């Protein structure tokens, strides 16, 4: 137990004054409490800190894509596939999520757009999958992750597909879901 000398001095001067009294008080205090081992003096204080983390599920894709299929290799042959790529980004802090994709409307008869995703979050990527107005699983079994992957598109057209001028535009919607 340590005694703070300046503090004691102030109080004693205030109450009784006199140097002798001050010395007496110090002597008694030392008897009461002994000399302090200040090197081992420790005091603790504490409080609680709580961390709250919301559920996060975000997905975004890169900009628009235009794909031009190539001319058939010969009469009666299908058009040569056209390819393009994009990227997608995901943040999810839930496990077991998947990504689906679907078209806003089907392309004209004979034209098919297929897509595949590179794997992120340890998910299982499906092979290049023809897209339609029904959602198709492109990546399943994802773990919680924040990352960016690649989208690979393949556009194909049969020999029966009609020329479509400037092209047909469809929205491809990607959904991150459980």
């Amino acid at each position, binding site marked *: *137990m*340590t*005694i*703070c000398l300046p*503090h*004691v001095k102030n*109080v*004693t001067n205030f*109450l*009784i004054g006199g140097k002798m*009294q001050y010395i*007496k*008080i110090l002597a*008694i*205090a030392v008897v*009461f*409490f002994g000399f*302090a081992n*200040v*090197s*081992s*003096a*420790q*005091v*603790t*204080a*504490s*409080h*609680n*800190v*709580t*961390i*709250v*983390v*919301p*559920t*996060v599920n*975000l*997905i*975004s894709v890169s900009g628009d894509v235009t794909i031009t299929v190539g001319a058939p290799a010969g009469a009666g042959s299908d058009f040569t596939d056209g390819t393009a790529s994009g990227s997608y*980004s*995901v*943040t*999810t*802090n*839930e*496990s077991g999520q998947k990504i689906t994709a679907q078209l806003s409307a089907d392309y004209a008869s004979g034209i098919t757009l297929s897509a595949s995703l590179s794997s992120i979050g340890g998910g299982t990527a499906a092979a290049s999958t023809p897209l339609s107005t029904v959602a198709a699983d492109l990546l399943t079994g994802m*773990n*919680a*992750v*924040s*990352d*960016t992957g690649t989208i690979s598109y393949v556009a194909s057209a049969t020999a029966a597909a009609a020329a479509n001028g400037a092209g047909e535009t469809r929205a491809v919607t990607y959904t991150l879901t459980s």
Partner: protein
Amino acid sequence: MRIYTLIIPAVLIISASSFAPQRANGQLYFGTTGGNVTLQVGQPVAAGLDPTPAESSSSGLFWILSPVLTSKIIVTSVAPGQSFQLFLSASNISSGNSAGEVQLTDGMLPADLVVNVRRLGLFGSATLNYRAEAPAELGNSASQGDDVHTVIFTWTAQ
């Protein structure tokens, strides 16, 4: 006169023990201010990025009458089932130096938070700066529950 020599030490003891903060050797008063802290991690700025860290400087430490000429404050944490990341540093220290940022983990060994605390005046204080991070792979509170740290500060001789 003899009566005063008995009363005054007793008065000193009683007055000292009436302070809420803890004390050591009848002369150090050491405690936290601002109460408990809650850190709410935010949504990511964009997909592909981790959730936004949460920060708080709403709490602090204060002390009255350092018992030794040079002291330090060390910190540890108890957080059973900890899932997320918590960091702490001290600033606005009235008499001492920050030991830098400390990552608080459950059952960690005590780490220096403030060093070279000198007995320059009767009172001293410091601001506590907390930062919580929850990279996506660490999950969320809905599945794992909130992290609750009991952060323990110890004043000790340096």
